[in-house]
């Protein structure tokens, strides 16, 4: 197992900058998730680590070894592609055996290894089939088996679950996590699904337009997003973000004035954020809360909870309420947010303002 390090890595395709000045450390034996929207440079990052692409600038290290100019076949990484990329003319057995065959491993050893990894992934009975005879979930396991069979120093996964249905995704997600812990392998997992990232990661790296936004454990990413992008990207429903005016150091929101125990500029603008699950909707304002008057717009009953959409000063926010909450559209209410749950951002830079 190795630690993967990127130093000042930039990757351009012609004039498109896919990754800009990346400095990262992927810790040995940890499960790191790279999270970002489509086109943010996630696949490019993996392909750089795998050696399929060469960085335009910067260096890549596996432990202390500089691998920047090593071709993929000299790096010993396992890569699972989004579309699995199984070889259609080979059986499942041949697909899994392929990396070993290329290394001229003795046939007896190949056989042993293939069966071992097939057993681990519960695909022993599929070994004689061709990829087109498999379901999506089965193909995904075969792709994972092919990546694991050569005991890679790093396991790279490029949205491996995105072609599966929601139920299977949640099931395999848990298995993946278990597997990684069992093998103690350094795993780098790319996804655009924030729930997947939260569930799997020891550490999350949020990336947007080729720039790292934040690198932190899931809990920290959730509670202390570094900027507007991270705050808006993590959580379901996402964080409510409202632009507000500062008047004499107080925040003016939805016609009410909130004073927060934090040092703020005397005037200008600020972005106020809070998570739907952290606020409550009540008939009156509460003590020790920022209370903003609003009107119920939509009520969505999800069974275990209700999602309320409230209009505050012309903007909509979402708040999660207990299933027993009795609200109907048109109700005049207060959205109460505990002071410590309020996040503030600089509207110019997007950076979070520490209270």
């Amino acid at each position, binding site marked *: 197992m190795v630690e993967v390090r990127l130093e000042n890595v930039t990757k351009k395709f012609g004039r498109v900058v896919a990754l800009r000045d990346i400095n990262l450390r992927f810790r040995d034996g940890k499960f790191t998730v790279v999270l970002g929207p489509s086109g943010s440079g996630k696949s490019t990052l993996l392909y750089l680590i*795998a050696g399929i692409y060469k960085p335009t600038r910067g260096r890549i290290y596996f432990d202390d070894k500089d691998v920047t100019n090593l071709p993929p076949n000299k790096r010993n990484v396992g890569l699972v*592609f*989004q*579309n699995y*990329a199984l070889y259609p*003319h080979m059986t499942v057995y041949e697909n899994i055996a*392929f*990396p070993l065959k*290329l290394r001229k491993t003795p046939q007896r050893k190949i056989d042993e290894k293939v069966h071992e990894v097939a057993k681990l992934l519960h695909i022993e009975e599929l070994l004689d089939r061709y990829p087109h005879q498999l379901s999506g979930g089965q193909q995904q396991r075969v792709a994972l088996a*092919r990546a694991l069979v050569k005991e890679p120093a790093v396991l790279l996964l490029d949205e491996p679950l995105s072609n599966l249905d929601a139920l299977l995704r949640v099931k395999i997600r848990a298995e993946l996590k278990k597997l990684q812990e069992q093998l103690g392998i350094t795993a780098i997992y790319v996804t655009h699904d924030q729930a997947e990232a939260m569930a799997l990661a020891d550490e999350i790296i949020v990336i947007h337009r080729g720039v790292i936004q934040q690198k932190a454990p899931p809990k920290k990413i959730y509670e202390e997003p570094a900027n507007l992008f991270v705050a808006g990207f993590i959580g379901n429903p996402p964080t409510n973000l409202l632009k507000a005016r500062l008047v004499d150091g107080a925040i003016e929101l939805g016609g009410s004035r909130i004073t927060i125990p934090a040092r703020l500029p005397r005037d200008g603008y600020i972005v106020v954020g809070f998570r739907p699950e952290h606020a409550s909707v009540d008939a009156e304002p509460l003590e020790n809360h920022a209370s903003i008057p609003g009107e119920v717009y939509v009520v969505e009953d999800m069974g275990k909870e209700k999602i309320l959409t409230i209009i505050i000063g012309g903007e909509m926010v979402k708040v999660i309420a207990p299933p027993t909450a009795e609200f109907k559209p048109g109700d005049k209410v207060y959205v109460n947010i505990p002071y410590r749950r309020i996040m503030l951002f600089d509207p110019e830079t997007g950076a979070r303002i520490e209270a």
Partner: protein
Amino acid sequence: MGAERLRSFLTSRRGHLAFFLAPALTLITIFYLVPLILSIYISLTPLKYWQLNRYLTDLSHPLENYYRLFYLVTHHPDIGKVVITTIVFTGLTLVVNVVGGLLLALATYLMEERFSLFYRTLWLLPRMTPIAVYSLLWYYFFHGSRFGILNSILLSLGVIHKPVWWGVDEKLLPWGAWMILVYVNGLVGVSFGMIIFYSALRSIPREQVMAARVDGATTTQLIRYVLIPSIKWHIVFVTVWELLSLLTTYAHIFLLVEWGLIDKWWGTTWALFVFNTAFTAQALDQGLAAAAATVLVAIGLVLGLITLKIMGFKELMIEPRGEL
């Protein structure tokens, strides 16, 4: 009643199939089946000098032309040369075309796109050049005088000391003539394989090639285990196609023989023999030519089927996606 039955036939599943296949079937019938049957028929008559009235209904000795052909092949030394030339020419040019096309396709696939396009266009030039012009080019190139391009180069380099008639010199035959034939036809033929193979390679998903690289494949291993197996069907197709067209091609060869660049018999293939026998003033023996043509078709058919069999055509037939 009739219209009703026609309509119900056309809306049935078999009717649909018949409807869509009809144009192709009609074309094949008119342009292939009818001439084939006609030439088989002519091969059974003693037709010569185009005297249709006199010979065309004479079926008294139907196999006479086949006996004559067999006799010629086994006893006439020049016709023996034609047979050997055909086998060598077809075999060698086939290998050059398929292997050469494959190598070109792989090279252009693995090289950078901006070079690739230029390179591929270059190899297409022979095919875009009119046959007469293209043949003339090689006529000058291999010409036996000291002004022939090859001769003048070799003379000035001091490799040879007097000009060589590459395609007719007794000492160089038969290989002199064969090499020119294979060279001239091979150069036109490789571009076909190259284009088919190149586009087939391009349609392999990018990720599969990346996966092979990550799995540890060198370029040679990538070609051997991933690229070539992925275009196996295209290789079969090009092989069969080139085999059949090489068996029947004669345009370049006709000109090169006619202009005296290559030996009359060591440079004549079976297809050219058919043409000469039927249409040139010395022979005008259409019955014999038809018999030779029929034999050629039969051989082509057998060889084609054998190739498909060897290369595992059945295995390559894809199961339909569900019920059609």
